[in-house]
């Protein structure tokens, strides 16, 4: 006998989850309680165990796919009943009948009716986004703008008369923003939409224009959880902070030379220092003299929250998107320790193994975009932090030394700060100190202090 296991609501009111990892293959035997799949939801990232003992006939969905609560996850041929037959069948094509099951929508307690208006969508808080760059994210509303990316099968709330008029005018009702209760689309909304002719630019206006034509010109993919979070955080930063940027370049021949020497002696330990640990250290040391940049502005509370720790977030580029794990107490750690931790977090980031604990409580952020490319940049502040420092590509350039032109090693530094909290003078002084450390790394040694 076959059992269709549907994605359950495992967190009080979930609508969907994303497949992170499959633990089973088609045709594989499984006992009840064994893990089937790892799912990421708004609330938790968790393994889903099998409810039955038997053989996996068919998995539904690939890694990265979003599965609605109540939609099929796996089909299991239950133990003792035609097990061998199931295995044989599992290795062939999916029978058409099962495809229908996948497409089945909107059952289960939660259902999948989409609402059309902004206000009617109750966003979850920042909870549960395991890989979010800023786990402290406040519950910013998710802009839920209907666009032509909505498939026509999405259900919307609308009055019958609104549906009739929309059909008559050749308007795709999914495009219209509802103003009624719970975002219900009313006759007025359709009429307004029609007179604004907004639909002309976003969607085929006549029913004659076939969906297939559009499908060829566009590829529509669902937004990943991590992309959603990044988008939300970027908007939050740009809307709240008064961004100001400053750029400079620093001659780092001494550092280049020093690093090369260090790497030679570290070779047998199998460690290779990049420039980043030096920057992390320099920033942490400089922050100690410039507390305003290691703080958080609480405008509503009429206060400033100074952080008495120096946790430096490191922007790491991954296939899924940007994540910002944190080097804790960077002021107290040796360059070697920082280098080791940097290596660890970037591996973890790429393998998607970062936990929220790895990413929380950053007090300042560094982005070393130059390792990929780019000289100067205008980084976006990792809000609610006050500053972010970007390191561009180390480049050889002519520099004037004394009255001569020499080949210099120039490291470009770009910084953005929240001008609500700090002024240009303070930023300049901070930057001068960072640059001084990078120009003369011995200075860094002098001020190193702290433990290991």
């Amino acid at each position, binding site marked *: 006998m076959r059992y269709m296991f549907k994605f359950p609501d495992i*967190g*009080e009111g979930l609508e969907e989850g994303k497949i992170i990892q499959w633990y089973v293959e088609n045709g594989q035997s499984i006992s009840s309680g064994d893990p089937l799949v790892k799912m990421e939801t708004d609330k938790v990232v968790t393994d889903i165990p099998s409810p039955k003992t038997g053989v996996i006939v068919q998995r539904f969905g690939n890694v990265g796919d979003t599965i609605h609560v109540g939609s099929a996850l796996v089909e299991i041929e239950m133990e003792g009943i035609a097990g061998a037959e199931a295995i044989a069948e599992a290795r062939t094509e999916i029978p058409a009948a099962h495809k229908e099951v996948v497409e089945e929508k909107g059952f289960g307690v939660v259902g999948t009716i989409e609402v059309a208006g902004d206000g009617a969508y109750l966003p979850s808080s920042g909870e549960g986004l395991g890989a979010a760059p800023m786990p402290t994210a406040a519950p910013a509303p998710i802009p839920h703008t209907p666009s032509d990316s909505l498939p026509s099968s999405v259900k919307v709330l609308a009055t019958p008369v609104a549906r009739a008029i929309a059909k008559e005018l050749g308007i795709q009702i999914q495009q219209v923003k509802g103003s009624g209760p719970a975002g219900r689309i009313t006759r007025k909304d359709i009429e307004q939409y029609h007179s604004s002719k907004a639909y002309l630019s976003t969607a085929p206006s006549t029913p004659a224009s076939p969906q297939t034509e559009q499908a060829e010109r566009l590829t529509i993919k669902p937004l990943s959880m991590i992309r959603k979070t990044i988008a939300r955080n970027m908007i939050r930063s740009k809307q709240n902070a008064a961004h100001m940027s400053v750029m400079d370049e620093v001659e780092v021949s001494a550092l280049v030379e020093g690093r090369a020497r260090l790497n030679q002696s570290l070779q047998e330990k199998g460690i290779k220092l990049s420039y980043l640990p030096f920057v992390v250290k320099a920033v942490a040391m400089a922050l100690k003299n410039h507390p305003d940049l290691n703080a958080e502005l609480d405008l509503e509370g009429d206060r400033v929250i100074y952080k008495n720790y120096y946790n430096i977030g490191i922007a790491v580029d991954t296939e899924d998107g940007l994540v910002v794990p944190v080097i804790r107490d960077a002021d107290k750690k040796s360059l070697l320790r920082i280098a080791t931790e940097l290596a660890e977090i970037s591996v973890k980031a790429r393998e998607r193994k970062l936990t929220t604990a790895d990413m929380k409580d950053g007090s300042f952020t560094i982005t070393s975009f130059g390792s990929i490319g780019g000289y100067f940049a205008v980084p976006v502040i990792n809000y609610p932090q006050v500053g972010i420092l970007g390191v561009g590509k180390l480049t050889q350039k002519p520099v004037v030394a004394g009255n001569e032109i020499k080949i210099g090693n120039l490291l470009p530094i770009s910084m953005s700060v929240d001008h609500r909290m700090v002024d240009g003078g303070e930023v300049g002084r901070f930057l001068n100190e960072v640059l001084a450390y990078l120009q003369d790394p011995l200075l860094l040694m002098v001020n190193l202090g702290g433990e290991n």
Partner: protein
Amino acid sequence: MFDLQTLDKYKPIDDKMYQVMDKDGKVIIKNWKTGLSEDDLVQAYKDLLFERTADQMAISYQRQGRMFTYPPNLGQEAIHIASGKVIKAEDWLVPAFRELGAWLAKGVSLWEIFLYFKGHEDGSKFLNAARMLPVSVPIASQLLHAVGLAYAMKYKGEEAAVFGYVGDGGTSEGDFHEALNFAAVWDVPVVFVVQNNQFAISVPLKMQTRSKNLALKGLAYDVDSVLVDGNDFLAMHDVLAFAREHVLKKKRPFLIEARTYRRGAHTTSDDPTKYRSKEEEEHWAELDPAARLQSYLVSKKLWDPKDEEALIAGYKKFIDSEFDKAEAYPDYKLEDVFGFMYQEMPVELKRQMNNYQNFMNLEGAQK
């Protein structure tokens, strides 16, 4: 053994915690003796393993979509198992919601507990357990019921105690303070057991109180109180057994702060990695109550860890069969909503029920 002299030595004001074994299960009190037989000790460990296995499987059932929100017990079992050994049939057990092992000891069937977390109120009938209240979700409200029960027992002249459970978060509620005050004013035999698992969902203890411990709070109401290592089964049993005797002899309430750590999530809807560090979790994992009791039993040559695997495999079979029972239990009827409101159904309710039945006959039939 814990007695009046011991109580005097462990003053909450000095923040001293009663502890019998260290983290490796070694007894650290000179000339200490347990009030339990060797068989009792072994059984206690088996009960703990059973609670832990049932708890893990409950989480698995929930993740399979076969049960609703569930609060895991991992890390707090010593408190529950020790309670189970002390609480007598004539005593009342007034639970919060995270005392699985104590409920089982009281006689509640596992399938009933599963049924409850599947959202069926019959799961609170406790067919084989006398004198236990249902789970209380409104935090700390149950302690007032505990005091009321004790007052009734006093009035009737019954020789029994009430065990009321609450978490550290519950001590921030008014109900906790009202209950302590009335218990003291009325001189009633309630043992308040505060399971201090360090977090009220995500709020750490230090954000809930300025007191250095929670046992201190009892003193303000003139309630004898003691702080005890809740991950130390032997210490927990000593204190609970003493507390029962004490409240019966003195006709006064008693408060126990059992310091422990919730190693799992608050509930299946919670992700604790958001509010606590791995280091902290690892620190508490080393103080795990099961490992400590096991080490103690092994050192006394009462237990061989080799036996555990087969034992747990047997438990799993039984637990699955209990869950099957819960799943086979008939759904409740929606008509019940109407049926139990009044002895005789008023006209308005009758109309609503008819509407509902008509709806079900027409549209519901297509379901």
